[in-house]
């Protein structure tokens, strides 16, 4: 009999708490998912698709719902990965960061046949031109995603290095050799050109 009381009281208390928690969960219900917005804000918005998702927003959604890893954004590099890992509260993962200098696409206009295929491919609408007319790329808006290279039937698009501007120059970390910086830039540039020849 005594045990019966004890069980009854325990069950009653548990029921009471359950009801309170149920009410609380309704009252404190969280609308929407601010997480994916926050992640999207961290991504570089190149819309390059290297993460395996068709653009930055879908990748952000995938990360927020824990379908994608935090280290799939190649252009964002380590910094973006760390930031995402931080807001997701997960351990940072290794990322293959390729040393790169900023590049933009460039259309050799005398070779362009005006097919508009690249215009359709550009995720940020930065190629202008009409059918049968030369197309050109607004270099200031190009994200360097390389998505327009593939569709071009005459291979007249190439990636060119963005010239280093004095106004945008910033001090490298202390101890950096001048020669190293110049060498690295040259090497990356050379490699980029080399790859193009192979394609």
């Amino acid at each position, binding site marked *: 009999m005594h045990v019966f009381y004890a069980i009854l009281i325990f069950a009653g208390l548990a029921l009471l708490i359950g009801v309170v928690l149920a009410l609380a969960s309704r009252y*404190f219900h969280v609308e929407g998912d601010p997480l994916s917005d926050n992640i999207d804000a961290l991504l570089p918005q190149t819309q390059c698709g290297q993460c395996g998702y068709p653009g930055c927003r879908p990748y952000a959604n995938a990360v927020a719902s824990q379908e994608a890893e935090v280290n799939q954004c190649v252009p964002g590099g380590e910094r973006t990965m760390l930031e995402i890992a931080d807001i997701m509260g997960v351990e940072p993962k290794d990322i293959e960061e390729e040393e790169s200098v900023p590049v933009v696409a460039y259309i050799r206009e005398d070779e362009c046949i005006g097919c508009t295929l690249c215009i359709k491919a550009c995720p940020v609408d930065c190629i202008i031109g009409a059918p049968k007319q030369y197309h050109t790329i607004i270099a200031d808006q190009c994200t360097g995603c390389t998505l327009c290279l593939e569709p071009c039937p005459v291979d007249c698009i190439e990636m060119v290095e963005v010239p280093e501007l004095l106004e945008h120059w910033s001090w490298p970390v202390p101890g950096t050799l001048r020669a190293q910086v110049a060498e690295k830039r040259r090497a990356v540039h050379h490699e980029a050109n080399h790859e193009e020849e192979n394609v």
Partner: protein
Amino acid sequence: MTEFAVILLSAVLVNNYVLTKFLGICPFLGVSGKLETAIGMSFAVMFVMTLASTMSWLIQQWILIPLDILYLQTVFFILIIAALVQFVEMVMHKTSPVLHQGLGIFLPLITTNCAVLGVAILNVQQDYSFFASVLYGFGAAVGFALVLILFSGLRERMEGAPIPEVFKGSPIALITAGMMALAFMGFSGLVKV
């Protein structure tokens, strides 16, 4: 009045839960990486611990003792603590999503945190009055918070230090915690309980 001051001081400094009773080591090591999360965790623990000691006293005095079912003490206490933690988590998710993310798994883990259950059980063992037991729970939580925040400050400072590879992370954190515990030995005898 002196009695209450003694309880508080003893719980915060002399018989610090983390450094002299070695309770609550899991969140102490787990959430001390960053100062901000440590502060958030401290407040969560303070809230839960104070309430847990209050509730456990009430349950002890009004349910367990009258009905003579003291053998169900642990189960009852865990039920209450679990509910409290669940409640705190919901409130936090609503009010501070960033902190919620930061605390991650450690917030639900407070449920099974030995410090929280420890404060509830030690409390009733010591036969405190209602007010004293609330104060004791609060003091223990403040002690936990103090040590956690200090420790997270120290760990933030260790970031980027060229610590030998094998000692990085938990090993050096444990050594530091040991040094802190030794330093807190200085408080011994401060209050004669």
